[in-house]
């Protein structure tokens, strides 16, 4: 499995150079890995249905418990058939669809293949983090495929919206995964399914995961990125935004059904959101004139339907889900590809401009009709079979009735927009000129024809479909049921509901024009697109507001804030934990008093100094006095170093001061600015003084390390000066580090000073030259030119 996933990504990586030269051949090459995956899945189908599940594990960090785990179970098999099967067909179709020299064509082949690989990995993943990685890979592929070259503003906005919405959901979902994995102790989905987590952690994780599933599967209120993404070329919309990627959310809920079986609110939430999505999508689809947008809203509606089924948690519901996943993949891919052909051959997708296409392209229309029948739920198509099962799943009393009514109403809308699509796209209209059409190449019609026949075949050969779906449903809910997918269950309520749906939908389609006039008059207070734009706008506004207030750009303000934080946080802790300071005394050595006086007076002098040299000299005084303190405190080495360094520092300062003005040039700040600075600095000083008292009183014995050094200095290093022994022997590497700091600083100083000098020299040379030439004494080229 891993080899197959990697082969997708590897070929995608090697494909761009091929696509640059032989774009059409690149699509054929790109179709190979998905074809291999499809064959592999079919070869294992019998074994998987019998209960044997191939597993592959690659551990990439054993200590962190991170691993790639792939498992081919029934759900993965269903999804692989969809992802790889439709992938192959879409890639073959793309060979004809794209204009060959275009950049889109060259870009899309490797990206589509990479997407197929990511999707393949996603459906096989048996580890939450593996799943997350592939989940986000599909998002990135979608961003690149929608955005394409990024030239048009519309595609940039659409791709960004898709990216932002789905990654937001993805991040929230990751949080849910982590909650789930950490509380249960494993990220393996199969292990989690064996012992479903319970309690509030599982409930919270479910809520977070649902956000991810809802954004990816375009559920209300996150649905609007999907119609926006329709700016992508049609094969991409067909593959990513109809057949595979948008199903990832539904797939995830189906995948986690056994894991989340203890979470009681899951079916309710998915039913509510799913039904609302089903309505909103269907309602909007009835209003669209662009065939592709109509289909996009149809997809949203169908995703809502799938979401209801995925969350149902009942045997029949899961059975219907598996059937519906296959059905939707097949008919939606067909319809998108057909719309692509119509668009490609006529140059328009607008219902108001198309007329008589069906008569001119009878085969295309037949293919579309087959798929549309499946979408509307007409027997003997797979769509009918799956919808019957869905109606069956919600037979019963109580809240189930509400869901059943919702599903029927949603399906009525589905039938209505299906009719609108067929009539609008292919019928001859009296008041419209017949559209000019060129017949499509056979290769372009073949892929949708295959999927359309699949709609029929899966329905007619329902025992095969049922075996697949029933195995999945049984494993998902843990027990089997009596219901089976089939074309005929006798005269029962689901059949009646199917009939009502069809008739109601046709009636609605017939009166849709009048309804549209009514709809236009209704106010639409809740527009998801406007909501998204408003959120993004206020986010940007907030960013400017926060940056404008926080980033004032003044260094003193920043430093002041840092100091205040120090005072507020460690300072308040210091105040709260006042332990009595023992052995408080004024001095240890009388000599400390005069030195302290010198230091304090010099410090006050530095603050008040207006001449640079005064300030520098006073700082030198402080340095020497501190050297004195070192002597008094028992650190002769320290004192020596301090005197030496202080002298060197003074020399360096004086060298620089030669070139600077004698006085500080900054404009004296006003009292209003100065006072807070004084107060903050004084508070900082008090804080440090107190901290020194308290910290040093907490330390009653010299550290064990120091003792070791004292005891072993003589035998270890044959030195009697222990400080020396530490610096040169015990901690010699620290000293090496210190030396390198010195070397780096010296290099920096040298380069700064020398570059300044050479710049000055160049400047001098140029000005000398110019003065010479303007005076006309030098017979230089410049002077000569100046005269002529």
């Amino acid at each position, binding site marked *: 499995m891993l080899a197959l996933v990697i082969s997708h990504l590897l070929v995608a990586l090697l494909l761009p150079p091929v696509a640059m030269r032989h774009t059409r051949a690149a699509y054929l090459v790109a179709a190979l890995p998905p074809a291999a995956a499809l064959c592999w899945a079919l070869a294992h189908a019998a074994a998987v249905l019998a209960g044997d599940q191939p597993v592959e594990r690659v551990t990439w960090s054993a200590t962190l418990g991170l691993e790639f785990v792939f498992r081919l179970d029934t759900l993965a098999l269903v999804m692989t058939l969809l992802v790889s099967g439709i992938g192959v067909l879409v890639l073959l179709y793309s060979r004809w669809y794209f204009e060959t020299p275009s950049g889109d064509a060259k870009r899309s082949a490797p990206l589509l293949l990479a997407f197929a690989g990511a999707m393949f990995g996603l459906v096989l993943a048996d580890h939450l983090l593996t799943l997350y990685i592939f989940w986000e890979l599909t998002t990135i592929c979608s961003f690149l495929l929608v955005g394409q070259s990024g030239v048009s503003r519309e595609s940039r906005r659409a791709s960004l919206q898709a990216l932002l919405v789905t990654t937001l959901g993805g991040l929230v979902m990751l949080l849910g995964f982590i909650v789930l994995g950490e509380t249960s102790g494993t990220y393996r989905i199969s292990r989690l399914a064996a012992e479903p987590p319970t309690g509030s952690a599982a409930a919270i994780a479910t809520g977070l995961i649902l956000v991810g599933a809802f954004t990816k599967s375009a559920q209300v209120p996150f649905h609007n990125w999907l119609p926006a993404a329709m700016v992508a070329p049609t094969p991409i919309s067909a593959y990513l935004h109809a057949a595979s990627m948008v199903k990832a959310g539904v797939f995830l809920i189906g995948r986690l059904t056994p894991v989340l079986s203890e979470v009681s609110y899951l079916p309710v939430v998915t039913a509510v959101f799913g039904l609302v999505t089903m309505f909103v999508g269907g309602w909007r689809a009835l209003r669209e004139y662009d065939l592709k947008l109509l289909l996009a809203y149809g997809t949203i509606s169908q995703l809502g339907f799938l979401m209801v089924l995925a969350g149902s948690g009942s045997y029949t519901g899961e059975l219907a889900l598996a059937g519906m996943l296959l059905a939707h993949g097949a008919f939606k891919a067909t319809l998108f590809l057909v719309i692509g052909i119509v668009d490609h051959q006529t140059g328009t997708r607008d219902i108001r401009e198309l007329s008589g296409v069906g008569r001119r392209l009878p085969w295309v229309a037949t293919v579309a009709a087959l798929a549309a029948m499946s979408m509307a739920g007409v027997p003997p198509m797979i769509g009918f079979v799956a919808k019957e099962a869905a109606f069956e799943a919600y037979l019963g009393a109580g809240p189930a009735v509400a869901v059943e009514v919702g599903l029927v109403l949603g399906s009525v809308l589905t039938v209505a927009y299906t009719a609108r699509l067929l009539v609008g796209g292919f019928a001859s209209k009296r008041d419209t000129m017949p559209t000019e059409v060129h017949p499509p190449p056979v290769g372009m019609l073949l892929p949708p024809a295959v999927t359309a026949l699949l709609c029929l075949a899966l329905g007619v050969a329902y025992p095969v479909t049922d075996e697949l779906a029933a195995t999945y449903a049984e494993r998902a809910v843990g027990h089997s049921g009596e219901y089976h997918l089939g074309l005929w269950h006798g005269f029962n309520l689901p059949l009646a509901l199917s009939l009502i749906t069809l008739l109601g939908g046709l009636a609605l389609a017939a009166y849709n024009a009048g309804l549209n006039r009514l709809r236009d008059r209704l106010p639409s207070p809740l527009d998801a697109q406007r909501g998204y734009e408003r959120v993004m706008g206020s986010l940007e506004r907030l960013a400017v507001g926060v940056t404008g207030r926080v980033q004032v750009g003044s260094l003193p303000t920043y430093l002041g804030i840092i100091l205040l934080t120090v005072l507020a946080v460690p300072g308040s802790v210091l105040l709260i934990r006042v332990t009595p300071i023992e*052995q408080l005394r004024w001095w240890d050595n009388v000599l400390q008093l005069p030195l302290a006086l010198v230091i304090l007076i010099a410090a006050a002098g530095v603050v008040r100094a207006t001449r640079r040299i005064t300030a520098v000299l006073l700082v030198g005084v402080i340095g020497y006095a501190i050297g004195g*303190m070192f002597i008094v405190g028992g650190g002769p*080495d320290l004192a020596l170093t301090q005197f030496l360094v202080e002298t060197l520092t003074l020399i360096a300062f004086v060298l*620089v001061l030669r070139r600077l003005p004698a006085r*500080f040039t900054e404009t004296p700040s006003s009292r209003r600015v100065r006072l807070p600075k004084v107060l903050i*600095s004084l508070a900082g000083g008090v804080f440090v*003084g107190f901290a020194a008292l308290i910290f040093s009183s907490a330390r009653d*014995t010299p550290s064990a390390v120091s003792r070791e050094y004292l005891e072993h200095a003589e035998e270890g290093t044959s030195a009697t000066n*222990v400080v020396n022994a530490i610096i040169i022997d015990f901690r010699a590497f620290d000293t090496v580090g210190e030396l390198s700091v010195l070397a780096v600083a010296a290099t920096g100083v040298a380069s700064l000073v020398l570059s300044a000098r050479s710049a000055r020299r160049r400047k001098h040379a140029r000005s000398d030259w110019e003065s010479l030439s303007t005076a006309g004494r030098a017979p230089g080229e410049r002077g000569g030119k100046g005269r002529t």
Partner: protein
Amino acid sequence: MNTVNLTMAIVLGGLYATGFYLLLQRSLMRVLLGIVILGHGANLLLQLAGGSQAGRPPMLGDAPIERMADPLPQAMALTAIVITFALTTFLLALAYRAWQLLGHDEVQDDVEDRRIRRLEAELAEADEETERELDSEATR
């Protein structure tokens, strides 16, 4: 035994207060002097932390081990002194270069940040205006 005495605590407070105040100034030279003074304060603090009242240098043979100053903080302070020196000269070179290139040695506000502040002010004004308009419409 190791508590810093009051005089030294006052000296430390004074050094840090001076250092902080200079750090908050606009002149690069003053900021640099602030850093130097803060360095002095820190070194002194390190050395004092090793026990201030022993007064006996850590030289073997001069005194029993129990009465010696703690050598470890001294070694650290020694390293710190040298590194402060390196830092000081480097900053000094930077300040000098800034003087050469810009003709002054003042720390100025960040231009980009100022631009964002102006944008924020404009946006806030625009927001208020639209609100006022909405209000007046509502009253009408």
